[in-house]
């Protein structure tokens, strides 16, 4: 069944979509970043000026640092998903229930989640501080405190993804390990750590690596919704992520070229990770 025309016909709809919605916009973004355009006046070519300003802009640097710090949640998340997958891999009803419970945050719309967590983090009346009050712990101001706002955001990011699709990946990966290996190891009395190192890790290593890679890409690129809905960029811009900065520049302050430059720089930041992903490309 070889026929160029037929093959193309099947691929054409998706491919046209990809060209129009991914490739052309990407090129357009790179071009836009070379202009200064505020929508109400015609665009003016400024070359690499936007980039020069951007790299010296303390707001950009702070957003970059914030994003990188927030992406530190990724290893925690991968480790957590792995641990949960390990913990919940049986098919007993109890385990099925638990798997459903930890999958809940993935199902619930992030918008609803962030709004919910914002009310939990209220300084006086939020659930968290009231609980801490009961126990007698002096609670920080969470979302009103520049130091703690990032921690709050990381908690939410961790909570919402730890039992999600990543855990399912690991679950299925673990299921491929023959059950006898499990039992033999436990019968032999191997402690958990050695079991992980000798049995699980070799099977899961590439899976973990891939998820880490994907996770970092997602963390650097994302974070817009949580910044927009939960913290508004954070007290003193402590939770402004790069994607939030892009939105602000392009859609609020109407600095289109500047916003596009932020986007291009974000792409450059994740390109080493993308190169890794390329290396892990599907075998043909």
């Amino acid at each position: 069944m070889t026929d160029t025309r037929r093959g193309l016909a099947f691929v054409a709809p998706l491919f046209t979509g990809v060209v129009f919605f991914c490739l052309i916009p990407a090129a357009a973004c790179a071009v836009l970043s070379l202009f200064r355009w505020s929508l109400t006046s015609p665009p003016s070519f400024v070359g690499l000026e936007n980039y020069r300003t951007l790299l010296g802009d303390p707001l950009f640097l702070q957003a970059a640092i914030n994003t990188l710090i927030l992406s530190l949640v990724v290893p925690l998340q991968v480790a957590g998903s792995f641990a949960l997958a390990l913990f919940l891999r049986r098919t007993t009803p109890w385990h099925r229930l638990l798997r459903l419970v930890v999958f809940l945050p993935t199902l619930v719309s992030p918008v609803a989640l962030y709004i919910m967590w914002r009310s939990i983090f209220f300084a006086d009346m939020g659930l968290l501080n009231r609980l801490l009050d009961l126990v007698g712990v002096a609670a920080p101001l969470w979302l009103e405190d520049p130091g703690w706002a990032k921690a709050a955001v990381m908690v939410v990011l961790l909570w919402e993804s730890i039992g999600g699709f990543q855990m399912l990946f690991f679950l299925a990966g673990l299921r491929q390990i023959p059950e006898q290996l499990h039992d033999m190891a436990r019968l032999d009395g191997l402690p958990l750590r050695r079991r992980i190192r000798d049995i699980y890790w070799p099977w899961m290593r590439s899976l973990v690596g891939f998820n880490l890679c994907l996770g970092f890409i997602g963390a650097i690129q994302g974070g817009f919704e949580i910044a927009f809905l939960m913290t508004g960029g954070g007290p003193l811009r402590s939770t402004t992520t790069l994607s939030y900065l892009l939105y602000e520049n392009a859609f609020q302050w109407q600095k289109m070229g500047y916003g596009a430059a932020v986007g291009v720089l974000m792409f450059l930041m994740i390109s080493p990770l993308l190169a890794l992903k390329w290396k892990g490309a599907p075998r043909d």
Partner: protein
Amino acid sequence: MTDGPTPSITRRLGALAGGLGLILVFITPFVWMIATSLKSNAEMFDGASGLGMLLPKAWRWQNYREIFTLIPFGRYLANSAFTASVSALLETGLAALAGFGLGILRWKGREQVHRLLFLSWLIPFSVVLIPRFFMMLQLPDILPGTDFWTAHRVLPAGSHEMAVGRLLGLDSFFTLVVPASVSVTATFLLITAMERIPHQILDAAYLETGSRYRVFRDMVLPLVTPTLVTVAFIAFLSSWQSFTWPLLVTSTLTMQTATVGLRAFQTLHSTQWPLLMAGSVVLTLPSLGFLLLAQTFVIDRYQLSELTEHRI
């Protein structure tokens, strides 16, 4: 299937405690959300401590009625549902077709197209966001007959009319659905799934029917149904939950989706938290329903073998 030797009591207790801990950590915020949604405004900030936090004094069920009367939340939900379903169907369809073309058919130029698709897979969302927005904005202006595309449309429904937005441009279902339905991930998933089908079967079928399309429809699709369902589920979920794109491209009361519409409670009546929570609860229910439907396909029988091969 045995689960191995009976674990000791301490291990069992430990596992039980761990499980309860998980339930506590994951369920409590939802209980809080539901409890808040049933409180009255004043009660929310009353400062009750202990279990009183989680139990409203007077169960204000009319909050759930109010969210539908104060803003057209029902319409928002319908918009979300429509967008998500159409998006899921479109995405699955496009990916299946392309998957067949790339995974099973062999033709000149296949490698290049595959590589190009992979390249576009690497392009992050933040880079395409701004140009996509302008592209969809300007589309009606580029095409002939701008007014035709940008007129607000209504659909007669019984005695009144239902506004259905424009055909193209801002506030149109086209803009909400189509850009997000182009998914290379789904395509790759399906390619991997389809590649596992033995060639001989397909060649035989082709010789019999003489039509590639029929091979696609009658042989390949049934064989990859679990993956199709997975792809559709993920597509539905991600469209249901999407926020940034609807935020940018919808503005009228009738065209917003539920995720964006929920924010109306923050600006309209100065953050009515109980109503906001009630809206969030209602927003969750369809996803839960969809999950229970897809539970057998997704969580327990997650067909990962295709995925792991593809990743590794």
